[in-house]
């Protein structure tokens, strides 16, 4: 018998796409019940283009090879005390923030993609989602394993999942992803695959991983780049998802536009945490947050939205606003963390003179004018032994849950106040973007578990803040939340390095 040569597309179709069938004994809508309620119209699932036609055998083969390489490096890192090669012990605080804020999101991505990987009616979309789900599980686990070594030598890394569910600033990433998972399956994909993975994730991984490389953290560089190779598949899925939905029916366009607007803003707020990592927490700096935003969002995203214009999709609402904010948010956020340093599971510090000069150079319009005076004041107080802390608890935005630290477009000394009333209750927001999101789905966002409000209700133990930190958050108080310069981490580092 002659054997026909099969190209990869036909082969994938035969092996995978034809597995499903039309039901005769049950109502298919009962088996896939969540496909219609969002109003997205799918006319023909067969039009789905598989971004990467990877069969499971190739998947196991290539992924096993990646894992083998990765774990060989983890082993070598641990055996050789690789943590001694980092640039500066302050660097580890980036790792702490990553493990408590980002790794649990990978977990939620695993769960969210498992959910949509079960629920989509089209086998192509399901399989792509399932593969992403198992990849995300990989990312959780490789991150835990990469940071396991740091946990043995530094404070603040001992309880990432517990903290993620409880600690005040971690409700920002947690609520972001829960918002996506609580939504319908198409919104989830637009939120995570497209808005987050495709448009914004490079801002998290590429500069952050280069940052790890600049600061001698080989374990993080390795898992980061290894994870990115999966990420490239996920980004491609994100673009295919959008094109597929838009091509299915013109009625889908306004729904998708609304989600793009929403999730761009949600993502932009979430990434403000990353801005502090880049501008303040990396001792050796790769590029400023502003530069990263310009390369990865304005240029990269610009090309993308130009490509999507033919469907009638516009760049996200408020993306212009982000161009003003990019000069401010890292300073505002690190100031927030510094002044709340007693309640963070990582250490905080005042930037050095050299670092402030770098910030002046990178932010000529804003740093000297608005932010340097704060740091100089804080330093004077520290020198007098009067370390400045925020006196109580901050007002939180009902939507993004970040303290209301953002300022008006035309006045960086004026807090942005926005509010809505709904069913007799008053809600506060940090921005027009967050207010719009609430106003569009108030029944969803009234449910926010706002850490400050929960503390006031007595749901987090206390009433003393130190009890909340120790018992509810499970901080090792005095270690996890110390000032960098007096911390046990710093003392140990000096001991390891033999410096006074």
């Amino acid at each position, binding site marked *: 018998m002659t054997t026909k040569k099969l190209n990869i597309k036909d082969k994938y179709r035969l092996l995978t796409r034809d597995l499903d069938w039309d039901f005769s004994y049950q109502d298919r809508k009962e088996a896939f019940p*969540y496909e219609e309620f969002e109003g997205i119209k799918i006319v023909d699932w067969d039009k789905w283009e598989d971004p990467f036609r990877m069969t499971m055998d190739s998947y196991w083969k290539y992924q096993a090879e990646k894992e083998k390489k990765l774990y060989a490096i983890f082993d070598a890192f641990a055996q050789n005390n690789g943590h001694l090669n980092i640039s500066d012990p302050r660097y580890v605080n980036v790792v702490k923030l990553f493990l408590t804020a980002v790794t649990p999101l990978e977990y939620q991505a695993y769960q969210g993609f498992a959910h949509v990987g079960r629920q989509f009616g089209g086998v192509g979309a399901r399989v792509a989602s399932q593969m992403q789900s198992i990849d995300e599980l990989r990312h959780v686990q490789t991150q835990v394993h990469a940071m396991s070594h740091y946990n043995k030598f530094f404070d603040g890394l001992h309880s990432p999942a517990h903290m993620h569910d409880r600690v005040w600033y971690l409700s920002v990433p947690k609520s972001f992803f829960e918002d996506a998972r609580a939504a319908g399956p198409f919104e989830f994909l637009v939120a995570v695959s497209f808005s987050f993975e495709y448009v914004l994730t490079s801002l998290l991984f590429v500069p952050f991983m280069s940052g790890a490389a600049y600061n001698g953290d080989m374990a993080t560089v390795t898992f980061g780049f290894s994870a990115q190779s999966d990420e490239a598949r996920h980004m491609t899925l994100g673009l295919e998802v959008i094109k597929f939905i838009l091509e299915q029916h013109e009625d889908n366009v306004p729904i998708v536009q609304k989600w793009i607007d929403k999730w761009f803003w949600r993502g932009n707020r979430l990434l403000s945490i990353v801005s502090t990592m880049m501008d303040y927490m990396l001792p050796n700096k790769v590029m400023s947050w502003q530069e990263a935003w310009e390369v990865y969002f304005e240029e990269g995203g610009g090309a993308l939205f130009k490509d999507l214009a033919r469907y009638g999709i516009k760049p996200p609402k408020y993306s212009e606003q982000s161009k003003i904010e990019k000069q401010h948010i890292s300073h505002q956020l690190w100031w927030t963390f510094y002044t709340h340093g007693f309640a963070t599971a990582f250490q905080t510090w005042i930037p050095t003179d050299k670092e402030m000069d770098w910030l002046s150079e990178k932010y000529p319009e804003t740093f000297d004018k608005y932010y340097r005076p704060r740091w100089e004041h804080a330093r004077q107080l520290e020198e007098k032994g009067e370390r400045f802390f925020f006196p109580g608890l901050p007002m939180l935005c009902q939507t993004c849950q970040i303290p209301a630290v953002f300022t008006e477009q035309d006045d960086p000394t004026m807090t942005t106040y926005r509010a809505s009333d709904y069913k007799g209750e008053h809600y506060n927001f940090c921005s027009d973007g967050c207010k719009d999101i609430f106003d569009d789905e108030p029944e969803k966002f009234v449910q926010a578990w706002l850490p400050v409000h929960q503390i006031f209700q007595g749901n987090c133990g206390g009433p003393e803040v130190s009890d909340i930190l120790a018992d509810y958050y499970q901080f090792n108080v005095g270690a996890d939340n110390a000032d960098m310069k007096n911390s046990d981490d710093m003392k140990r580092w000096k001991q390891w390095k033999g410096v006074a």
Partner: protein
Amino acid sequence: MAVKPLHEGYIGEVKDRVENYGGNYIVHIGWDHHMLYAAPQALVLSPDLPFAEFLHKVMPESFGAHPDFATIDWPSVQWKVDGTAFEPVPEKTLKELGVGHKSVIRFDTPGAMGIGNAGV
């Protein structure tokens, strides 16, 4: 607009409704152009708190650490609650002055422009 759930009747549980605070309100206080405080402060206060007590007890605890605080010319301070200007009356309660649960009280202190005149 409203949320679009799978089935009708999706009602969100309001996790911080006023009943959960034993008769108190969450009240936010923000000082315009004073970014030393990264965000407005959230406090739990009685709605029956007279403004005088708010001014003399609560405010110093919250903002007394700022070098401008001691120099504030109180009569010239402009007050707003949830964006609307109000005239403080010492013996009136917060509630009577229009403060509700989760309200924002803002005060602007003309002349005091923060540390280094930088709005800090």
